């Protein structure tokens, strides 16, 4: 177990007593978990990492969160905030042990302000639930990670989550106005404001994407976005991966901004089609799923331009979804892709890298070379429009050599992303998966300042210790294989 060397295995009885006193049972539901069989559920997230916490608590109010923080201070244990546990970089895992603070029961939409297109929510509100709740008002919450039916807005804020439609609408940080946070001192502070340009530094902007290392979120004010009048979803099939990537390059270069521009390569298409029956052409080398939206007059002309670029790059078929049923089916194919992959390989490792859009063709070729070099099948299904890659490396974790090679191949891919001017993670976060890759991008001075910034919020690393920055203690394996028995956990 990771981090085991740094902590004891059972929860201190005085700590347990204090937590139980602060968090009374909720009807039949326990508010404090500490039995090993209960904790097993919290030792993983959507990533390939594992770490078992010493306990899990379920606050219902900000006051209870403050109490938990005070107790943690008294007993010198760390706290790790957690939403739905769908994260992909180990952000919500107790790497060094400690207590997980689950926000699953702080899941109320507190206010929908239609006039100002804002909503005030508790951190445990599920992303898709907010959009559903405001759909009748013609509004939605724009960030849409593939895990949106399970992931929480608190988790989205912590990780600065993305999703397919962030291409036109922006990622989580572009939609967060204010955050209520409990600091490790037990202080409640309010960052940002519902009105724009509040006085002072942009602390809300700094906080979004801090991966749980600054504070525990107890409330969030987000922007709601008007649903578009018209949505056009195009499916373009290509006989070569290069044609598909060149199409994306030219769409970007022409200044067309689709709402989404997703790519799937041939291997992934076949895996998905077999499972979802979305109507993807089975013998194509790559497909693009491109969505344009807005006023009808704008969407139609954009769709025509997109189709033209696809044909220019030898698309053998460009299909427009006839109705919302066809559209939903295409998106079901995209969003369930990882579940489909899970049926084909005992284990797989999903990477998240980002590159300048102009470098797509050469990067895809390089990924394919890396696969050949290590003898792996590598599938690609990703947010092509913003250069956010998700190569999926398929391997058999029972074979130690294969496991090591998979990790090495992933490292080579990310190193190449950085080499062409990209970054080590586009939307999954650094967490405990990529802390050792931070030096690829950042100097000692960069990381030293970042750590001092963290210390301004969280000086003793009481919150989410051992994340983001390369660790110097508690030597661990950085990556463990994912077992995908159910294939039900969704990914971005």
């Amino acid at each position, binding site marked *: 177990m990771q981090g085991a060397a740094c902590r004891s295995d059972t929860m201190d009885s005085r700590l347990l007593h204090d937590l139980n006193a602060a968090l009374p049972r909720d009807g039949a539901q326990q508010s404090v978990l500490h039995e090993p069989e209960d904790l097993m559920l919290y030792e993983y997230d959507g990533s390939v990492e594992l770490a078992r916490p010493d306990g899990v608590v379920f606050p219902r109010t900000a006051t209870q969160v403050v109490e938990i923080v005070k107790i943690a201070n008294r007993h010198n244990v760390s706290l790790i905030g957690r939403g739905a546990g769908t994260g992909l970089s180990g952000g919500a895992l107790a790497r060094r042990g400690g207590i997980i603070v689950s926000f699953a029961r702080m899941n109320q939409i507190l206010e929908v*302000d239609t*006039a*100002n*297109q804002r909503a005030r929510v508790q951190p445990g509100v599920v992303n898709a639930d907010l959009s559903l709740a405001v759909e009748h008002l013609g509004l939605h919450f724009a960030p849409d990670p593939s895990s949106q039916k399970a992931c929480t807005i608190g988790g989205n804020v912590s*990780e*600065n989550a*993305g999703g397919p439609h962030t291409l036109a609408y*922006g*990622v989580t940080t*572009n939609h967060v106005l204010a955050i209520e946070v409990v600091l490790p001192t037990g202080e409640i*502070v*309010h*960052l940002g*404001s*519902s*009105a*724009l*340009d509040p*006085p*002072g*530094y*942009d*602390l809300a*902007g*700094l906080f*979004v*994407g801090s991966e749980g290392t600054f504070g525990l979120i107890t409330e969030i004010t987000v922007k709601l976005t*008007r649903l578009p009048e018209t949505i056009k979803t195009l499916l373009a099939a290509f006989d070569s991966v290069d044609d598909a990537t060149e199409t994306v390059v030219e769409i*970007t270069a*022409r*200044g*067309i*901004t689709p709402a989404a521009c997703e790519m799937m390569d041939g291997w992934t298409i076949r895996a998905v089609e077999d499972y979802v029956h979305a109507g993807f052409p089975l013998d194509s080398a790559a497909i693009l799923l491109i969505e344009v939206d807005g*006023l009808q*007059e*704008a969407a139609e*002309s954009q769709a025509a331009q997109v189709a033209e670029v696809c044909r220019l790059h030898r698309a053998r078929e460009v299909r427009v979804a006839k109705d919302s049923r066809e559209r939903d089916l295409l998106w079901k194919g995209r969003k369930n892709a990882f579940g489909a992959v899970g049926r084909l390989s005992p284990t797989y490792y999903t990477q998240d890298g*980002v*590159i*300048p*859009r102009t470098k797509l063709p050469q990067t895809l070729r390089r990924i394919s070379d890396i696969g050949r070099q290590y003898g792996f099948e590598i599938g690609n299904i990703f947010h092509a429009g*913003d250069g956010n890659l998700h190569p999926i490396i398929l391997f058999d974790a029972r074979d130690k050599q294969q496991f090591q090679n998979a990790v090495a191949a992933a490292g080579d891919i990310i190193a190449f992303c950085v080499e062409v*001017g990209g*970054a080590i*993670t586009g939307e*999954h976060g*650094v967490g405990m998966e990529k802390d050792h890759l*931070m030096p690829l*991008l*950042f*100097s000692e*001075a*960069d*990381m030293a*300042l970042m750590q*001092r*910034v*963290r210390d*301004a*919020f969280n000086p003793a690393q009481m919150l989410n210790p051992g994340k983001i920055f390369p660790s110097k203690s508690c030597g661990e394996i950085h990556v463990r294989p994912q077992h995908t028995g159910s294939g039900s956990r969704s990914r971005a």
Partner: protein
Amino acid sequence: MYDLNTLAPVPVPVPDPQSATAAVSVASRLGEILGAANVFTDPADLSSFAIEGTVPAAVARPRAAEEVAALVKFAAAEKLAIVPCGARTKMSMGMPPRQYDIAVDMTRINRILAYDPDDLTLSVEPGLPLRELAAALTQRHQFLPLAVPFFDRATIGGTIASGVDSPLRQFYGTARDYTLGMEFVTGDGALVKSGGRVVKNVSGYDMHKLMIGSFGTLGIITKINLRTFPLPEMTRTYLATFDDAAGACEFRHAIARSFLRPQSLEIIAAGGAPSAAHLLAPFASERDWCVVISVAGNALVLGRSRRELESMSRQGEHPARDFTELAPADERKILPLLREFPGGAPRSNLPSALLKISALPSDLQVVAEAISRLAAEQQVSWTLLMRGVGIVYLSLAAADASAESSLRLAAACDAISSRCNGRQWDSAAFLWRSRESGSKTNAWAPVRDDISLIHRLKNTFDPANIFAPGRFVGGV
């Protein structure tokens, strides 16, 4: 020289002999770092870097980020206060620094380091004038949505560091939404970076967001990475006039409920003393509440937008009196007026002040009505520009040059700022304030419960407290 508050000539301060000696030693040490030719100490040169009458001992003109780092290390060791600047168009915004020894003129660090039009990304140095940057982007049919005050003179660095906004934020958001990464020098002389030059990135903390609008109190920006935007196919601007704030605000709300997504939406009004002239004169008469909307798209989109905007403007309890599409020549006159208004250039020689107010869009009408009432009570003239997103710029001017009118202006400033700062979400700050309009002890909105974090972060970035000390919110 001119006082940036009043644009009135002021006498050049004469440094006392003791500080003159100190200035010589500061200058000679800086000369060792930058080369003597790159350090100015001539009083005539220094005076143009004055902030509210305080002149620095020297002006440093570094040519590279490494030189900036070296001079900051020296300043930190000597506890010399630094104010970084570009074209110096916004030096008077915020509080005057408590100490001011070295002006760091960044205008020679001014290259476009990388421009990848096909990726719509850009990396620039801070001293680059916005005008030049815009020209380079226009060649590739791209732009940055920074239609900001002092557009003809300002640098990209000063624009980002001061956080001034643009009418185009209605559609494109602000710099925080399209800044991808930065490199900057912190108060210990370290050259650091955050973010990158890709449009989606969660690697490390977004420290560059702190730099936006921090007025040089956390670090000196040496590189800015931005995403660029394709120029729209066509744009049109429409002007609707209403009798009152209610009509203008109702129109704003109707547009927000529609499928239209304008590039900009501003409400403009004026009132008060008879001398008050409408910002949009001669396109509007003195009592008009004008709504100016810009729309982008293809011919079909523009045609439909025009039809729907006009129809919305004529509906409701307070319909528009007029709805017109601006002729290109008129558009070219009006848009720069709207762009420059938040810069606060005085529109007359009378004592005046400019406030920036943050409000919820649904409160715009009550804010406008409160302003017009409080201004009327003190007989001051006012000009109001309200962005549809809830940002309000208010220019107040005394009725005449008399002492009594100045007192009334000061009273109106205090009444309006305390009224706006007394409400839950709203805040009001003085972007500038001429001396006659009252003291500048409260330029910023009152601090909130995040003030301890603000102090801790200031100390993290600038432990020696040498970057424009006291200029920003909460005295940092």
